[in-house]
């Protein structure tokens, strides 16, 4: 089943290389913007579940603030040896009203 969450936040509220944590249906989700595109991922590192809110984004990669694993925001795939578990990603788009629109499955 697909749940959609409209009217999340206005797309203009988030700038490049910024993250915004939101709770959707009890899930902690991180909205990110990189190179002009929006991404949504689980706000929890797959290494040791650290929150990713303060992670740096560089070139479509989000780095965990704790030990530094970098996740490709497009695929969720990690780089480095600390974890091989990808980060869950969610489709996100800008709706007609200018708000971000998220799909949870």
């Amino acid at each position, binding site marked *: 089943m697909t749940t959609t969450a409209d009217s999340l936040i206005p797309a203009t509220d988030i700038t490049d290389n910024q993250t915004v944590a939101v709770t959707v249906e009890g899930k902690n989700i991180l909205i990110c913007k990189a190179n002009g595109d929006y991404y949504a991922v689980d706000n929890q590192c797959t290494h040791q579940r650290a929150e990713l809110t303060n992670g740096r984004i*560089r070139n479509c990669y989000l780095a965990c603030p704790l030990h530094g694993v970098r996740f490709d925001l497009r695929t969720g795939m990690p780089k480095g040896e600390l974890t091989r578990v990808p980060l869950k990603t969610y489709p996100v788009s800008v709706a007609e009203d200018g708000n971000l629109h998220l799909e949870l499955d």
Partner: protein
Amino acid sequence: MSELIKVKQQGEERCEGISYQNLLDEETIEVPAYLREDTNPYMGDEDISVDRWISRDFHDKEKEKLWPKVWQMTCREEDIPEVGDHHIYEIIDQSIIVTRTGENEFKGFINSCLHRGRILRDCDGHADEFVCPFHGATWDINGEFKGIPCKWDFSHLDEKDMSLPQVKVGTWGGFIFINFDENCIPLDDYLSPLPEHFSRFPLHDYYKGAHVQREVQCNWKVGAEAFMESFHTLETHSEILTFTGDANSQYDTFGDHVSRSVTPMGIPSPHLPHVTEAETMRDILELSGRMATDSAEGHEMPEGITARTYVAETNREMFSEIIGESLDHATKSELEDAILYMLFPNTQVWTGYHGNIVYRFLPNGDDHNSCIFETMILLRYEKGTKRPDSAEKNILRPDQAFSEAPEIGGLGPVFDQDDSNMAAVQKGMIASRKGAVSLASYQESRIRHLHQSIDKYLNA
């Protein structure tokens, strides 16, 4: 003629085409002194043993006496733009955390936890502090020890210096260098005369627009040498001969650490007699991968203008538009020739006003039969605007072609041709009955220079 200048390009034994220095005489703009340098002391003609490329023993000597002593390029400053950003530089079995610790300050830490030795950082990124993933020992980004959990169990460490050990760090042209040797010569001395020769190309102000990496199945020196002579153009890149003065290239050596080749472009090869100016112009735009445009469509040369002049003027106009600065002082040579410097032992940088290529060849970990080949393209951006972000490294799989990396454009197919020799040279050297290679006196002099400099380190 003295033995010393026996094979200098201006000596008797030179190719029949016009020399680079004579081409400079045709410039209408004042030629800067660095282009007028023409220095190639005779270094001998002896064969060189293949052991230097294929033997484990030689690799071990380099590991022990070369890499621990030389200044080596690790990354670009813009790769780690914010305080706390770091790059993990690995050379053979060593690992360094190259960290930005201030606006213009960098440190290099040995990437090994002082508790039980785990590497402290697994990959490039950003950190407010370095927390070891094993038991949580922590250092600040300046390398000061901040503690370890269960402190009661470590009172014996109180007396010890627990700051992270460091290597020497220096910068030039936006590159960050390290040296493992406490007593090494200063970076500025090591680089000389590179900074002076690059004074018209402020590389610290460029940004890395592309970065592609791939493993190649050859020793790192075989890889580096593939870019140190233009002699191979005739057989390996024959399609670029209509605009490449391969055999009239000039080769120079400067001290132990710097050498260069200058290959005139926008003129046909002396090997190719019947090329028209229009063909030269069309091919250089479409095939070189380094000009301001990669299409010859709509380019008509006015009567009486040479391809060399036309392409230089096209580049002058388009480059200066991109960088928002006049290039009236630039010579044709600087606008189109292949002027390629090598910084000992493994970094090569092109001059140029926009789109400077950089090569680096690193041993592939502890394997002497393979290496990591990287190419970067440094770009300029409009004066007064924000520096664009540095490109993420594109790591190709070993089975991928360089032409599969769209960001390097026309260079990809050229590298693929070079690539077709690199692993094959390694294989052939291993199979060699002769057990040695022979070098052209002049055109391959930079390769001899590289090896003589290596020997200075190995015999020190």
